């Protein structure tokens, strides 16, 4: 008994010693150093390589003796395509996303939770599975064509399919984000506007939207960057066209390192400039007060019209996002025992379990790799991310550094993951430090970079919303800094940490672009799906896609349970 008391006392003393300012700062420096070397160093190193090898690289790209500048021209084409698609995707996402998000944030109706969950469903679908599903729905004779009795897919692989695919996978992210943004605007302020004579549409335009300005812009940036950086789905949908991230993969496959490096750097620079510029602009520039058309706005605020409007938006959502995203499930059911050719030979069951090439076995291996990577990445990122988030919100002495760090955290978000993967390969792989060769550990390193913002950003949010007086209560009750963190802050943030962990985990599970570059002989499930589609084993691809959807969906359910505790 007394020895237990003694141990406890010693432990508290130990925490007190660790809470001393110099030790704390030392630890924080370590955390920042880890962030720097795992997340920031790869792209910086890439940049350095480009600068040192500038002459030989430009030689290759602009003044090749045989190809002249055709490499540059094709790069330019792919970049232009990527940006065009990203821009249109952003517009569609925002236009459709705002009404849906507004209804979900503001109205209570029967079945709201169900719709809420449905909107989130595509989040659970990894992009390569989703790309495959979209391809089946829009681009094959077994998809929508079947219902309208056309003989071929409605769209062939190319920009239109890319566009549809990108809308399908980015939409849920955007709606989720916008919903949160709108919820943060106090309903009572909207009520004030109503009592002053403004119909709902005017209220949204003059009050809600301006107040949520920064959030809406952040949502737009999210849509844009998610589309710009996507690789997995694009690989399946692009056909002969190349988006910039795909081109990086192509360069890598052809071992054309300098070209890949150059394209990556261009993408990184454009993305960061764009992001920084828009953010600065959004913060500084006040929008002029919108003009109001009272008669017209009153009319379209009428209940009937509002209902029709919501109906149309919901229909478009079903057609563009939900059905395409989940179509692969119906397809799998269709081809489960009898394949597309009408024989058992290419049915899903036969291909996966009975065929000679043992797809089920390699699928299992890929699945294990995927889970291993995701687990390791999640653990490392949380142990780096929680202290980082805490430092950014709660350590005033970091002063200006905090602003820099705060911006730096988002950098991986805007860099296409294939470019990031390439940067990781170049730094740690056999062309750089030669520490790690392609394979599972390089995949881990690559995934660490792009999941980092996904684990830190929500944590920052949770910590900002954490009522600091609980910490102060702990301190004034006699607990040291570290003891207070362990006994008060950590348990109260548990929920946030768990949902942040699951988000990181699913992001890692679903990633294709970066993995393709650094995987060596290892395979994760999303990559495996791409392989299967490319080798025309559509039934097995469907099986793998549904498997991945199933796993991610379960995780998503857990997130929802954690996020919305039943009030009791």
């Amino acid at each position, binding site marked *: 008994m007394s020895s237990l008391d003694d141990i406890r006392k010693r432990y508290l003393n130990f925490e007190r010693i660790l809470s001393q300012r110099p030790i704390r700062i030392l630890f924080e420096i370590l955390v920042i150093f880890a962030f720097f070397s795992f997340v920031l160093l790869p792209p910086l190193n890439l940049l350095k390589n480009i600068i040192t090898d500038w002459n030989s690289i430009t030689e290759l790209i602009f003044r090749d003796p045989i190809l002249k500048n055709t490499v540059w021209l094709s790069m330019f084409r792919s970049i232009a395509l990527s940006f065009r698609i990203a821009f249109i995707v952003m517009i569609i996402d925002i236009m459709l996303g705002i009404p849906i998000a507004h209804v979900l944030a503001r109205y209570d109706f029967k079945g709201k939770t169900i719709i809420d969950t449905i909107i989130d469903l595509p989040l659970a679908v990894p992009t390569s599975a989703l790309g495959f599903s979209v391809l089946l729905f829009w681009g094959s004779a077994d998809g929508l064509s079947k219902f309208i009795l056309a003989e071929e897919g409605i769209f062939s692989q190319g920009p239109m399919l890319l566009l549809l695919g990108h809308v399908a996978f980015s939409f849920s992210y955007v709606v989720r984000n916008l919903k949160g943004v709108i919820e943060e605007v*106090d309903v*009572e*302020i909207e*009520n*004030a*506007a*109503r*009592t*002053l*004579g*403004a*119909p709902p549409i*005017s209220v949204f335009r*003059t*009050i809600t939207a*301006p*107040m949520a*300005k920064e959030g809406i812009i952040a949502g737009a940036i999210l849509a844009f960057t998610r589309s710009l950086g996507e690789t997995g789905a694009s690989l399946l949908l692009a056909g002969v066209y190349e988006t910039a991230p795909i081109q990086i993969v192509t360069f890598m496959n052809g071992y054309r390192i300098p070209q890949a490096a150059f394209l990556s750097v261009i993408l990184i620079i454009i993305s960061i400039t764009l992001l920084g510029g828009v953010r600065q602009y959004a913060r500084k520039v*006040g929008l002029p*007060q919108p003009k*109001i*058309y*009272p*008669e017209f706005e*009153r009319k379209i605020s009428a209940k009937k019209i509002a209902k029709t409007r919501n109906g149309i938006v919901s229909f478009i959502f079903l057609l563009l996002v939900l059905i395409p995203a989940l179509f692969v499930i119906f397809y799998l059911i269709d081809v489960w025992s009898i394949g597309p050719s009408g024989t058992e030979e290419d049915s899903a069951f036969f291909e996966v379990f009975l065929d000679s090439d043992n797809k089920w076995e390699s699928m299992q291996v890929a699945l294990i790799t995927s889970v291993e990577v995701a687990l390791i990445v999640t653990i490392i990122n949380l142990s780096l991310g929680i202290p980082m988030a805490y430092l950014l919100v709660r350590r005033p002495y970091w002063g200006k550094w905090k602003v820099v760090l705060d911006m730096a955290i988002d950098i991986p978000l805007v860099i296409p993951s294939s470019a990031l993967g390439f940067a990781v390969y170049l730094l740690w792989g056999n062309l750089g430090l030669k520490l790690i060769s392609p394979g599972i550990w390089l995949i881990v390193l690559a995934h660490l970079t792009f999941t980092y913002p996904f684990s830190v950003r929500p944590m920052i949010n949770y910590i900002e919303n954490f009522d600091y007086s609980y910490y102060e209560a702990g301190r004034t009750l006699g607990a040291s800094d570290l003891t207070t963190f362990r006994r008060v802050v950590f348990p109260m943030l548990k929920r946030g940490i768990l949902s942040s962990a699951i988000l990181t985990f699913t992001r890692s599970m679903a990633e294709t672009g970066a993995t393709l570059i650094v995987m060596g002989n290892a395979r994760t499930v999303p990559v495996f799906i791409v392989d299967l589609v490319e080798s025309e084993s559509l039934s097995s691809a469907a099986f793998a896609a549904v498997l991945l959807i199933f796993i991610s969906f379960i995780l998503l359910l857990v997130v929802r349970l954690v996020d919305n505790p039943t009030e009791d």
Partner: protein
Amino acid sequence: MASIELQNVTVKIGNNILLDNVSLKVDDGAYIGLLGPSNGGPSFVLKVIAGLLPIYSGKIFIDEVDVTDSHPEDRNVGFIFEQFNLFPHLTVLDNILYGPRVKGIDLTTKEREAKEVISMVRLENRESALSKELSGGMQQRTGIARAITAGAKILLLDQPYRALDAKIREEMRFEIRELVKELGMTAIHSTHETEEAMLTSDKIAVFNEGKLLQFDNPETVYKIPVNAFVAGFLAESNKFQVKVKDNSFIIENSKFIVDGYEDGEYVVIIRQIDVDLTSEPLNVVNEFECIIDKIRILGEFIRFTVTINNSLTIIVRELLSLERNNVKNLIGKRAYVNFRPDLIKLFLV
């Protein structure tokens, strides 16, 4: 003209009854106070009138027009919120001009009117400030100016001073009442503080648990409350349960005389302010010798806790006076309390 009528209004959220069959008629130009505990009803009445809370049954009329189904933006009422709810991205002037703007009224003519309203609420020099740069009092005055400029003939004030410091509350209460009267508006004001309601209102409606208990002028509600809740809510009171026999009752061995009550069980409410504390006996009815146990200075009031016959504790409240400048010396001293029979309020259990 701006009269308001609620006919048998009931509001439910799930099985929770927020308003229970409330009927209330407010005349044009009246200033009405709704008094009750925070969730007892007053705020819900205001929300219902503004159309911000859907009703379960009943009807609402503004100027004798049925508005039960019309939207908040069509009711032309000004709502003043406890938390002010200014639009944070707009300046004071733009907040005030918001109403005309969304109604499509030409702003050039309105701007002069807005300036007048701004000077009425004493916000000159503050026109281009954002709400975060204003103190609570200024924010609330902006809120009021905003409602006036939107053309509201009815002002619904929902605990408007609750979020303000005591001192500012004191200043604003009367100022706003006078402004409302000057502009000929109809006002309904919810609060849980008796003094605020009494000071501002022509008539007071007392609520509890969603029910309207009494609606009358302040003096009547205070002096002739309909039940023990109203009697106790309007002023700090001593409360007992007694058996009346032959116009008298006994609490802890002390016998009190009352007049005109039949025998039976009653709740007794004796307001603290109605108990008279003297250092010498006055030889009146219901006078007792007592010991002063505790003295609390409450600012404008002094509160004494006294014990009669070593057993009955009574709280006495007294308006501050010059004579009490050494009041602390009275602790532990002997004194006398008397209770005027007509100020002892009895309600059948």
